[in-house]
């Protein structure tokens, strides 16, 4: 539990950040970089892209420092900006390459898939390809809620939508995946 002096220190840090103090910004970066990086990585599933997006996210955070309300928590605000940056990246990538080559991303991940003998590798590959074809907004909701098992309220806060809208997006994502898999001759 944070002590009184920690709370004062934290408020002071956030106030200084809001006023554009670069040292305060660096302290916040050091404090939150790991969790923000983890959040971005969960969405884009590509370590190199996650690092680029970290830079983009903290640049956006710095740019928006004057709009930050010190009474609010820094991390959810940072996650929301990170999610927006990741969404922009997914949209740009989708436009550039048509369907993304997620297979390579899966291969690059720090934690490799734990193969389930009940599910053939080919089916898993097709499922990951179908997932890559989902609209980015649905994809983020599905990956955070279903794969990463993040609480709906955290996903909703990061996306700037309601919990009900998150559930709806997950449902639509699952329905589209089912349709895509059926189109490939896979009956889930």
């Amino acid at each position, binding site marked *: 539990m944070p002590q009184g002096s920690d709370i004062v220190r934290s408020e002071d840090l956030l106030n200084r950040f809001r006023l554009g103090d670069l040292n305060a910004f660096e302290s916040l970066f050091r404090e939150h*970089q790991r969790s923000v990086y*983890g959040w971005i990585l969960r969405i884009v599933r590509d370590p190199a892209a996650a690092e680029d997006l970290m830079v*983009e996210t*903290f640049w956006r955070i710095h740019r928006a420092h004057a709009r930050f309300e010190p009474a609010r928590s820094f991390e959810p605000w940072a996650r929301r900006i990170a999610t927006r940056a990741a969404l922009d990246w997914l949209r740009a990538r989708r436009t550039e390459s048509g369907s993304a080559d997620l297979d390579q991303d899966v291969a690059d*991940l720090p934690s490799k898939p734990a193969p389930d003998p009940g599910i053939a590798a080919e089916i898993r590959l097709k499922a990951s390809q179908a997932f890559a074809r989902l609209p980015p907004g649905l994809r983020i909701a599905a990956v955070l809620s279903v794969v990463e098992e993040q609480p709906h309220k955290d996903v909703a806060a990061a996306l700037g939508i309601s919990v009900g809208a998150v559930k709806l997006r997950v449902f639509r994502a*699952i329905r589209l995946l089912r349709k895509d*898999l059926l189109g490939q001759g896979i009956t889930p």
Partner: protein
Amino acid sequence: MTRQEEDRIKQLLQQSLPPVDPAAEPSRDLWPAVLRRIDAEPAAVPGPARQNWFDWALLAGLVVFAVSFPATIPVFLYYL
């Protein structure tokens, strides 16, 4: 789609896209890159709120109205 199908697709998704290692961290210190980015594109100085689409729509409406009914222009000017 039945509940069972939904659960099976979720399970397939979890098998196809394994959860990210919670201990994952950047391979290098990214602070210097953040500083370079800030130097390249300095933060905007806080100023008046950005114009949003509604402001532009209102302005366009006024222009269309003034062109359609030019006799009202002096009335507008009077109230400015």
